[in-house]
């Protein structure tokens, strides 16, 4: 569609330029006037055809699956005419091609090696979860020793949300913030592992209540993210669907195929077992999003009891929110839960062994680290020392002068650079993250930086010269490259959002607290991560994700 339009435009422009050139003679100019009139009429008919085709597609997408007796398009596709399949990986399945988005090419991808560093401290942080009460009910005190899977605290309002210890050890400290709200619970890891036994069992033979009970007791329940709003679901909620995206397209994101490959045959069986358990929670409504651009692991392609959807595209094509928009749009009354593949394996392992195995394979990435690799650590680990060592050895080998080195500091981000959380000090990971990014702080002035950028930086705009070279990868830093302004440029957000959505107008209606527009423009379909790229590309440096969360909270408070 896009290419056809472009061709038409070239023709029109050519005609516009060419006709006056040849129109020296008056009798000729009449011929030209009418021939171009004919051309315009043909063009209009063609445009009408294309628009008709588009409207068929749109009206078809509003029909339920079994009513879709209309053909998808009356212009035959390449596949239908020549039998050429563009997506051999997906086979005959339908592939959703998402052509908008942007890939931020950063240096510092993790090497394909798996390390097992020793971790001394682990924290469990209630603030990582949306909708938690600030002061949870504590079940342990400082100095208590805890087992793996032992309950630490639960939410005061909804006592089904138990947070359990991912390691065996001693509760070192319970840190409190303003008004005695709990910031985190820090546990010192002991050498010996001791487990709380939840009892193994085959989820296929269990009833819903049994599966729910086990997930809540073990603390794995809090890994569910309920859309809309991105909250931890209630115990009694019956999900309309559970969605797992098996690939992550964010900058430097971990490769789940590789993570599964390391777990071997066992990993594949555990993943299937996890899916079986999810199938009990949402019968027939477990969905997998697969990458048609790169061969997914067999655990994903051959998973049973799950509906598979194929996607092809650059970031944010891997986000569950974007994929859900194309396969199952979320309305105000829907409840769709999302999970990550390693959470599913954890659930599978819980049912297999009866024990909580809260270890994650985390991608340690970032251009200013010496030894980038995957590390297997308990969730919520303190990785501050580890990162510091690797940063120091990177800087020691760097060829900058001593003064510049002394001024350079780094930032640890739990998660990816678009929607991760900045972590400081000991560097406790977020409970659910399988990704760490370390990048240099950009707290330096740059002379005429707005006019003559002095070092390469990622951008979607061709006026930044490096953006023209697709082979470039960047050492990004945290500089804002400009100051905050009101919305000026339009169309930018839409160009990186592969959804039928107008993010800029959604944000404006949030700022205006216009309830009906916020709802209508599709706030139920998005979470912060889905619009993170909009925030990256924003010329006016607007806090898109923060504003979106404001809007989500506003809608939640109105319901």
């Amino acid at each position, binding site marked *: 569609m896009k290419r056809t339009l472009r061709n038409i435009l070239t023709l029109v422009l050519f005609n516009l330029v060419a006709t006056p050139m040849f129109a020296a003679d008056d009798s000729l100019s009449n011929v030209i006037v009418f021939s171009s009139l004919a051309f315009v009429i043909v063009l209009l008919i063609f445009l009408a055809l294309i628009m008709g085709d588009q409207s068929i597609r749109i009206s078809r997408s509003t029909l339920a699956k079994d009513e879709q007796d209309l053909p998808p398009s009356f212009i035959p596709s390449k596949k239908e005419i020549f039998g050429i399949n563009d997506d051999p990986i997906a086979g005959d399945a339908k592939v959703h091609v998402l052509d908008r988005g942007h890939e931020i090419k950063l240096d510092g991808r993790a090497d394909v090696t798996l390390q097992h560093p020793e971790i001394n401290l682990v924290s469990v942080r209630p603030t990582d979860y949306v909708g938690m009460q600030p002061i949870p009910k504590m079940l342990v005190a400082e100095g208590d020793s805890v087992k793996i899977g032992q309950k630490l605290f639960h939410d005061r309002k909804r006592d089904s949300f138990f947070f359990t210890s991912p390691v065996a050890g001693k509760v070192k400290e319970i840190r409190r913030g303003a008004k005695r709200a709990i910031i985190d619970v820090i546990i010192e890891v002991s050498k010996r592992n001791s487990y709380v036994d939840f009892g193994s069992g085959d989820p296929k033979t269990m009833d819903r209540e049994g599966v729910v009970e086990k997930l809540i007791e073990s603390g794995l329940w809090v890994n569910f993210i309920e859309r809309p709003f991105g909250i931890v679901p209630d115990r009694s909620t019956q999900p309309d669907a559970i969605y797992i995206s098996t690939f992550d397209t964010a900058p430097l994101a971990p490769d789940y195929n590789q993570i599964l490959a390391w777990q071997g045959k066992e990993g594949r069986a555990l993943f299937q077992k996890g899916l079986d358990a999810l199938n009990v929670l949402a019968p027939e409504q477990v969905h997998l999003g697969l990458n048609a651009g790169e061969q997914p692991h067999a655990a994903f392609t051959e998973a049973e009891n799950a509906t598979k959807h194929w996607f092809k595209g650059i970031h944010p094509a891997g986000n569950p929110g974007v994929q859900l928009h194309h396969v199952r749009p979320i309305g105000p009354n829907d409840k769709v839960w999302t999970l990550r593949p390693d959470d599913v394996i954890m659930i599978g392992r819980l049912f297999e062994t009866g024990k909580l195995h809260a270890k994650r394979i985390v991608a340690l990435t970032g251009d200013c680290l010496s030894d980038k690799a995957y590390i297997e650590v308990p969730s919520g680990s303190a990785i501050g020392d580890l990162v510091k060592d690797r940063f120091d050895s990177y800087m020691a080998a760097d060829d900058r002068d001593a003064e510049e080195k002394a001024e350079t500091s780094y930032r640890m981000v739990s998660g990816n650079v678009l929607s991760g959380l900045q972590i400081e000090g000991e560097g406790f990971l977020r409970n659910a993250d399988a990704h760490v990014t370390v990048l240099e702080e950009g707290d330096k002035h740059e002379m005429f930086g707005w006019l003559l950028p002095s070092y390469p930086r990622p951008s979607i705009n061709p006026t930044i010269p490096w953006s023209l070279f697709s082979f470039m990868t960047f050492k990004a830093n945290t500089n804002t490259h400009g100051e905050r302004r009101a919305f000026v440029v339009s169309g930018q957000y839409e160009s990186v959002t592969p959804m039928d959505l107008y993010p800029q107008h959604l944000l404006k209606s949030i700022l205006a607290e216009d309830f009906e527009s916020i709802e209508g423009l599709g706030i139920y379909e998005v979470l912060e991560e889905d619009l993170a790229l909009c925030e990256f590309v924003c010329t006016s440096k607007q806090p*898109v994700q923060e504003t979106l969360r404001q809007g989500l909270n506003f809608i939640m408070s109105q319901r």
Partner: protein
Amino acid sequence: MKLIRNFLDRIEPDKKSSPFLHTLWDGFDTFLYAPASVTKNGVHIRDGMDLKRTMIHVVLAMQLAFIAGVINIGHQHYTAFGMYGGAFQGIGWKFAYGLLQILPLIIVVHVVGLGIEFFFAAKKGHSIEEGFLVSAFLIPMIMPPDVPLWMVAIATAFAVIVAKEAFGGTGMNILNIALTARVFVFFAYPSEISGEICWISYDYNVLHSLFGIKAHTVDYLANLPNGGVAFDSMFDEAGQFIANSSVLIDGWSGATPLGLAANGGWSAVQEASYTIIDPVTNKAEVFQQYSTTNLLLGVMPGSIGEMNKLAVIAGALILAVSGIGSWRIMLSMVLGAVAVAILMNILGETLYPNQDHFIKVPWYYQLFMGSFLFAMAFMATDPVTASGTDLGKLFYGFGIGAVGMVVRVLNPAYPEGWMLAILFMNVFAPLIDYFVLQSNIKRREARVQVQ
């Protein structure tokens, strides 16, 4: 480099006790240095593009048209005096004359506009907004070259205060700032901006005297081989230039092609000619005033921006390729104008079969007369006042093209329509967006309901 940085850091005024000084300092500081601010939670890296860079690229895209326009102001001026008839004769003098004629205009617009901007920025406690960078360059480019400076000052102040700051500054305005300034002059001082006399610059200002441009003309006229002409005889007692007073040139008028076409149709444009009498040989040479080449290269009276079509197209391409100006608006505006112009041509054949009329001007020449291309490249693409949705932009551009062509051809009073068409569609842009968003909302409702 460090020295300047340290100096700037040392002299930073206190924001609370002297907000105006701080805004001024902040303006220079962020001009010299991209700030050292870092991201907080949210995204941790940001795109290298910011508003300053966006705006400066619009200004840069205008520069070709600006330089070509400046030379052409000189060319028109000297031709009226019978000097330097060829396009490249005395090009240095032409450039110098044009630049010195426009420079006071640019300075006045910047001083007045930026002064008001600084004042409001300090009042609001914001840093200075970059939007005016573009407006301040656009305003001199769409004014008659001879327009009195005080008039420009008032128009600029009006535009900045009423069209922009009253709405909350850059990003909030509904009407295009530069066009508001022009429409102010147009309605408040109509005699200064319409008719035959205003589009050629005849006067010499202080700068011209200072740099010897005036002396050069006086000398040239006095030392002609045929005895010479006194400079003052070119002007009447009120200081108005007397067209055709010169012994050197005959048949010259300052009428624009659009003005001619409005009265006599396309043939009037083609027939317009003047004669330059060579001072040495006394031979008369006839020039066609508005050949197609002259229209394309902008050798005609007018404001600076609209003249050289090739330079304007180059600017439009820069904007479209860099994504700063919307190609959707540009393209649909061309389509809208072409569609209406073709319709006019057909209508003209039936209405005036045996007579030449404005309505019968071939549609492709309509695009190269007047300021159509300049309005398309730099005025209609202003992202703030245009539609915000991609689909809306197509309707918005088409609307400007269609309305503008209607105003141009069917309005007897004023043979140019883009200023009014753009302001008109500026007002309608939010409505277009509303309908696009409503269709999005309906689509979403339908999609969710079937689940």
